[in-house]
């Protein structure tokens, strides 16, 4: 029975399911590094999904559609940012509002602009092209999994490195992190402050736009109401768990993807679907409980480290004395 669950197909499904969580989660991570707890990722993804289908349909090109999705979601995210940063609104309540606004806006556009009833589907709309890269066939195990995926799939994994470099190795990243940890430093050295928060929020918009496009355009170029199905909130939990540290955010997203995928396999062998569907949420709560424990362990370690370094310092001093 174990190989029903742990096989290539499961891994492939897991990696595909991870992508939206990964992209949205990294967007949320960048925001929290800038000091902004963004719970509107769900809404952003929905906007992205809608406009990706609309754009693809209009221009008959899935890449153009994706681009339009990214641009609109960035605008949406910046509006969210403006209300929180400029008008000093509570970020959770406003995030909530933007989630609801996304649902109602896309719903309105669906019925009014497109005339669809609950969904927007036109079989002639091109979906994202699956790219065949012959080079990948030579890679053992992973090769067949990663090959024949669309571009956003690849972007997702590549972006882990790109965003890591952006946040930890570029000037922009340093300023963003400074805003999150101690904005006074920016003030004291005479620099712009909110600007970096806006950049962070725009990045999260772009990533969520990609995530939404991926969800909508991967299998069928289709938009349905509530197609994000809470994945934006799962992404928020990966952000909380990882505290915005991109590699851990990515890892957490992947774990959720795996759990989701295994869950689907388990459904096939008769375990009630509800318990399977519950696993991400239960996992999240467990993650959060775990983080209390790790917090207190961290604090204990800090004190230990201080003692260790004193000890080491003492040794070094003795060495210097005696070796002279």
């Amino acid at each position, binding site marked *: 029975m174990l190989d029903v669950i742990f096989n290539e197909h499961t891994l492939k499904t897991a990696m595909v399911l991870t992508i939206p969580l990964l992209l949205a989660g990294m967007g949320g991570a960048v925001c929290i590094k800038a000091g902004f707890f963004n719970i509107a990722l769900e809404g952003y993804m929905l906007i992205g999904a809608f406009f990706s289908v609309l754009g693809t349909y209009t221009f008959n090109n899935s890449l153009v559609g994706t681009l339009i999705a990214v641009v609109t979601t960035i605008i949406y995210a910046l509006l969210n940012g403006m209300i929180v940063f400029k008008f000093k609104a509570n970020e959770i309540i406003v995030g909530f509002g933007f989630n609801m606004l996304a649902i109602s806006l896309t719903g309105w556009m669906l019925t009014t602009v497109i005339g669809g009833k609950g969904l927007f589907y036109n079989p002639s709309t091109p979906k994202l092209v699956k790219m065949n890269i012959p080079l990948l066939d030579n890679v053992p195990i992973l090769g067949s999994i990663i090959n024949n995926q669309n571009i956003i799939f690849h972007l997702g994994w590549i972006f882990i490195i790109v965003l890591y*470099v952006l946040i930890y*190795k*570029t*000037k922009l990243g*340093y300023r963003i*992190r*400074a805003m999150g*940890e*101690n904005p*006074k*430093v*920016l*003030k*004291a*050295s*005479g*620099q712009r402050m909110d600007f970096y928060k806006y950049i962070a929020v725009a990045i999260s918009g772009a990533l969520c736009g990609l995530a939404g496009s991926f969800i909508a355009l991967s299998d069928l170029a289709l938009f349905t109401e509530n197609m994000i199905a809470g994945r934006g909130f799962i992404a928020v939990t990966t952000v909380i768990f990882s505290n915005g540290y991109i590699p851990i955010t990515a890892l957490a997203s992947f774990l959720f993807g795996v759990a989701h995928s295994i869950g689907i396999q388990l459904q096939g062998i008769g375990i009630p679907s509800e318990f399977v569907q519950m696993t991400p949420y239960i996992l999240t709560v467990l993650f959060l409980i775990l983080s209390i424990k790790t917090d207190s362990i961290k604090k204990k370690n*800090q004190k230990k*480290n201080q003692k260790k370094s004193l000890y080491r310092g003492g040794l070094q001093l003795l060495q210097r004395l005696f070796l002279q």
Partner: protein
Amino acid sequence: MGDVMKKNILELKNISKIFPHPENPVVANNKVNMEIREGEIHAIIGENGAGKSTLMNLLYGNLTPTEGSIFFRGEKVEIDNPGTAISTGIGMVHQHFNLIPSFTVAENLVFGFEPTNKCGLVDLKRAKKITREISEKNKLFIDPEKKVKDCVLSEKQKIEILKILFYGAEVLIFDEPTAVLTPQKTKELFNVFFELKKKGKTIIFITHKLKEVMDVADRITVMRKGEIVNVVGKASTSKEELASMMVGRDIKLIKRKIKNPENFGKDILRINNLSYQDDYNIKRLSNVSLSVKSGEIVGIAGVGGNGQKELIESIAGLNNKKNISGSIEYNNIDITHYNSTKIRNHKIGYITGDRFSKGVCGSSSVYENLIMGIHNDDAYRKGIFINHNKLDELTNSFIEDYEIKLPSKDSIITSLSGGNVQKCIFAREIFNAKELIITEEPTRGVDIGAIEFIHEQLISKSKDGYGVLLVSTDLDEIISLSTKILVIYCGRIVGIVNPEEEGFENKIALMMGGVESVG
């Protein structure tokens, strides 16, 4: 040393800073004229409220002057934000360091002006090199790769100094730099000062510790109540003289408002060897012992930041109790580890100095603010309900007795003036208190009429048999009200003075400046 002909690197001409307010405008600096010579170490001393910090904030661009001008090397400069100050060549080492905890020393140093490599990424190697160079050049040794959150406070201070040197500061301003340093680290810091002086840098530092001043400074400016009192060279003065200048020669003119009674009653509050370490592992209180008897007003004098806040908060149950050693007893009950709820239940009146963050709720009405704590009293409740009728009467009596001026009891408390807000806190807390009142900065920012009133209240309560612990950085207040004065310095009680004794004023001044200590 040939510094007779040294030019002035900084000149402040006729600088005034007034903080506007409808009733009580605060004149923080009043027509200050100051000259700082290039290459000197210049100390600015004074009590709380003397205007030292405001002046430095003007130099660094955190504030702009209401009047007057600043000249740097003879040229007029408009410093309206820290960026301008930095580009002019003025750097400030803040008391609460402006550092990013998760960054390394090197990353913090170059922040804002990070070197980049060919790919456009931050060049950490070069950053580390720069850090090492500046560090060695100025003999401020520190590991560039260490993360700031792992650094101790003296290291963090070093980083701040290196930072402003990196920015090209010619004038370095320090605000109470030794507040968080051990004597050993203080010595190291002063060596740094001397090194910097050798390199031609100018140092201005604010302090209230007179021994330090005599160890390090070339010239000293004494400020009091927003004005310059005197400027002296080290050679021509002494700690004692500085102490008396700092505290004011008219101490003898302060009128006493209370006469010490013959006897005092029982011990209401007893503190034994109280020590407290804060979350950053700095010792804020060291073996503090004191007692407050019925009928006493025990005044704790000292420049702010010497442990007063920690002392009061420890008694009030607001501190992290894990870091306390020693004992606090209230009427022979050990309250050392009580939290704020339990302390309240024991009816200890606590008038806080943090008016708007703790003392009142800014967005609530006056009535709602007045009833806090009283609403749980047996007399003012009916089971789970609050007896609003009785509280209405009570709050009306507060308003009448304390002459609180307000539009109505339902108006938001922020619509009252500072003095009236303080009266509200007073009325409530004195009512809440059964035998002991502890208060910090009771009349800060309060108009004269209200000050008089509040003082009368404290005196009358002591006559009724209450014990009062009065912590204040306003020496006038301490001297006029206390039956006994303790001076706190660096978390220790360095002396006890009887204000009805001859010559007590000299002792106090010296103790506050850390010059003298008894026991």
